[in-house]
C-alpha cells in the first residue's frame, strides 16, 4: 500500500512533508538549535541570521527552535484529539449501526446536533466553558470530531451487516462482539485510515486557529497559532515573527492533506476529493 501511495508524486511529497513534521516533533530536543524557552532580552527581535536562522522574537527566543517545538505541540494535539474522535466515533458508529433501533436513532441525533454547529464555533464555546489549555483543547477537538466518523463507520456497518458472510456467522449463533470485531470492523479500516490521515491536517489547522484566538496553548508553550498572533503587533517591524509559523502550518497541513488524498486514491478510488476540508 505504501508503495502505491509513494508511487503518486503528490503522495510522495505528502509523505515527505508529513515525515518532516513528525520528525521535527519527535526529535525536537535534538535538532532545535536553541532552547525554545530561553528568554534573552538582549537578543530581542533580531532578524534572521546565521545564529538564528529565522530570527528571534520579542523576548529574544529563537524562532527556529520554537517552530520545531511547535511541530511537537501541533502533532500531540492533533494526534491525540484524532484518536479520541476515532475511538468515540468508531465505537458509537459500530454500536448504532449494528444494533440499530432506538439506540441507533439516539446516537445519530446526537451526531446531527454535533454537526449542526459550525465546528470552530462549537470549539470556542467549549473551550470558553472549560478554560483554555492544551488538554481541554485536545478533549474538545476529540469530542467535536466524533460525529463525522460515527456516520462513516455506521454506514459501513450497515452495508457489511447485510453481506452474506456476516449473515452466515450470525445465523450460526456467533457472538455480537465477535462479529463486530472480527468481521465488521476490519471492513471499516480503509475508510478509517483515510479519515484519520485527513483529520490530522484538520487537527493541526484547528489547533493553530484556536491558539491564534488565545483559546489553545498557553505561554510559554510555543504553538504556531499563538506565535502568529503574538507576532501581529510586530508585522511591520519584524514580519518574520508571523510569516515563519504560518509557513509551518501550511506545509504541515499540506503534507497530511496530500497524504490523505493519496491514501484515498489507493484505498477507495470512488471517493476522490470527498471529505478533505481545511
Amino acid at each position, binding site marked *: 500500500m505504501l508503495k502505491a501511495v509513494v508511487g503518486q508524486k503528490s503522495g510522495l511529497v505528502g509523505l515527505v512533508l508529513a515525515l518532516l513534521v513528525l520528525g521535527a516533533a519527535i526529535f525536537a530536543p535534538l535538532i532545535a538549535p536553541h532552547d525554545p524557552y530561553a528568554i534573552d532580552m538582549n537578543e530581542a527581535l533580531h532578524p534572521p541570521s546565521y545564529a538564528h536562522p529565522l530570527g528571534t522574537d*520579542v523576548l529574544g527566543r529563537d524562532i527556529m527552535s520554537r517552530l520545531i517545538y511547535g511541530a511537537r505541540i501541533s502533532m500531540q494535539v492533533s494526534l491525540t484529539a484524532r484518536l479520541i474522535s476515532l475511538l468515540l466515533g468508531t465505537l458509537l458508529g459500530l454500536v448504532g449501526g449494528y444494533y440499530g433501533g432506538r439506540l441507533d436513532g439516539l446516537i445519530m441525533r446526537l451526531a446531527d446536533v454535533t454537526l449542526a454547529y459550525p465546528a470552530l464555533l462549537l470549539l470556542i464555546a467549549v473551550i470558553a466553558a472549560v*478554560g483554555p489549555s492544551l488538554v481541554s483543547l485536545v478533549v474538545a477537538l476529540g469530542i467535536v470530531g466524533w460525529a463525522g466518523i460515527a456516520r462513516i463507520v455506521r454506514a459501513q456497518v450497515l452495508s457489511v451487516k447485510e453481506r452474506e458472510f456476516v449473515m452466515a456467522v450470525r445465523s450460526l449463533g456467533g457472538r455480537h462482539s465477535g462479529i463486530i470485531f472480527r468481521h465488521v470492523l476490519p471492513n471499516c479500516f480503509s475508510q478509517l485510515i483515510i479519515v484519520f490521515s485527513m483529520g490530522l491536517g484538520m487537527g493541526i489547522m484547528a489547533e493553530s486557529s484556536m491558539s491564534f484566538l488565545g483559546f489553545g496553548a498557553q505561554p510559554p508553550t510555543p504553538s504556531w497559532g499563538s506565535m502568529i498572533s503574538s507576532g501581529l503587533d510586530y508585522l511591520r517591524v519584524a514580519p518574520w515573527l508571523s510569516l515563519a509559523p504560518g509557513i509551518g502550518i501550511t506545509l504541515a497541513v499540506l503534507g497530511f492533506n496530500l497524504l490523505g488524498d493519496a491514501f484515498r486514491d489507493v484505498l477507495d478510488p470512488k471517493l476522490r476529493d470527498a471529505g478533505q476540508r481545511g
Partner: protein
Amino acid sequence: MKKQILGSLLAVCLLGCSQEAAVDNTLHLALETSPNKLDPALVVDVAEGQLCSLIFQRLVRFSPEGDVVPDAAASWEMLDSGRRYVFHLDPRARFSSGRRVLSSDVVASFGRVLGPSSRSSRQWVLARIRGAGSFTRGVASSVSGLAAPDDSTVTIELEEPFRPFLQLLAMPAASIVPVDLAEEAGDGFAAEPLGSGPWRLAAWNRGDYLSLVPNPHYPGSKPALDELRFRIIPEAFTRIAEFEAGTLDMLKVPLAELSRFLQDDQWKDRLQSRPELRVLYIGLNNNRGPLRDARVRRALNMAVDVDQLINVLYQGHATRAAGAIPPSLGGFRERDAYPYDPAQARRLLAEAGFGEGFAMEIWQRDSPEGNRLVEAVQGYLLQAGVTVTIVKREWSAFKEAVSQGRVDAFFLDWYADYPDAENFLFPLFHSQNAGPGGNRAFINEPRVDELIERAQRTDEPEAGLRLYASADSLVYELAPWIYLYFPTTFLAVSPRIENYVFPVVYLGEDFSSVQKLSKGNH
C-alpha cells in the same frame, strides 16, 4: 461606445479611489473595543467614559492640563473648609433637545446613580455626599446632602471633607442627564444617549463606528469640525495600516511600532507624548502561601529586571515605578527602586525558608501587551527558582477570582479616574477596599490606612501630599506588588490636524478647538 464606458468606469474608479476623505471635515478616530452602554450611570471603561464626557456635561470638567474647570456650573464656592459646595449653573446650558439644564436635573441625575434601584457600579463616585448611603439602602427617600434651592443653584454637603471631591464630580458618573427622557427611554437610553455636552450622538452602527456631531444648543464656541467618527478597530496592526492609509487622523502608537515611528521622517515631528496616569504591576496576594512573607515579595521584586523590560518592550519610553503614585502627580516621591539582583533574591527566599524555590500562578487577561510582559516575568522568576504558571482568563472570570483572593498573583494596571494621588492609594491599598474595591493584593496595614485617611481629610494641600508620599513609601517597603512601570503614550497626529493637545486625563479632551485642514492647504 465601448471606449466611453471604459472611460467613465475609469473616472468612477479614480474618484472612488482618490480618498473620499479629501473634502470631509470629519475627525477619524479609532476605538480598540466596542462600547456597550453610553449611559453615564452604567459606564465602566475608558472608551465609554470618553464618549460620555463628550455627550454629557458634568458640573465641572477637566481641562486638557488636568485642572478642574467650569462645565454646566459657571461658578462655585467651597464652604466650611470643604464640607459644603454651592454650584451656580450656566443659564445657557441646553440639552441637545433644546431644553434648559436645570438644577433639578443635577439632583435627579445624582439620584439616578445613587438610588436603590440603580444598577450603577459607580455609586462610590457620589457616595461621599451626606445621606447618600441611606438613600441607596432605601432608608431615606432623598439624598439629604443634595438640594436645588432654585433653578440654577445646586448645593452639596459631604459627610466629611474630601480633598479630591471636585475631581470626582468631573467623572462620567456625575454627568447631568435629562432624567425625564432617560426614564422614558429605560434601557434604551444607553443606546440613544442625549445630553448637554458639546457633541451629540448622530449614529451608532454597532461593531463598525460611532458618529458624533456638534450639539447645536451648546453655549460654548462651536467646534470647527463637522463630525467626530470613532471607528472600532480591535487589531493594532490594522489601526496602523489605516492611519498610514490616511483613513485615521490619530493613532495611539503601539509599542511594537514606536521606534519605527520615532525614526520615520514623516512622523517623528507629528508625535505627541504624555506620561500616563497609569501604573502596571503584578499584584501579589499578601494572604497566600509564601507570598505572606514580605521578604519573599521583596525577593520577587529583585528577581525581575524591570529596566531591561522597559528598554526592550517600551524602547525605553516608560518610567520605572518605585511606588504607586505617578511622577506627574503631587505626592510622588523619588526613591530607590529594588535593585535587579537575582542572587540577593535567592538569598532572601532562602532566608524565608524557600531556598528550593516555589511554584505560583500569575493570572492575566489576554492582551498583547500583557502576554509579552507576563511571559518575560515568568522567565525572570524562573531564574530565581520560582516556577510560574500563567493563567489567562477573560475579564469577569479574572476579576472574580482575583477579587475573592483565590489566586497567587495577577497582572493588572490601574488608570487614574481623576488626577490625584488619592486615587492611587485609597482604592489600591486601604484595607476597606480589600478585594472588589481595588485592593486585590489584600494588603492590610493599619499604618497605611491611617495615613491615607488623614490625607483625605486634611484641607492643607501640602500636608496632604506629604501624607500621600509617606503612605506610598510605607507600601513600597511592604512590596504588595512586583512594581513595574508608568507607561508613556505616544500619539501620532495626521498633518492635517491642528490645535490638538494631548490631554493629561483622558476625559480632558472635548475636540472643540481641533481643526482639520482640507487637502489643498497642505
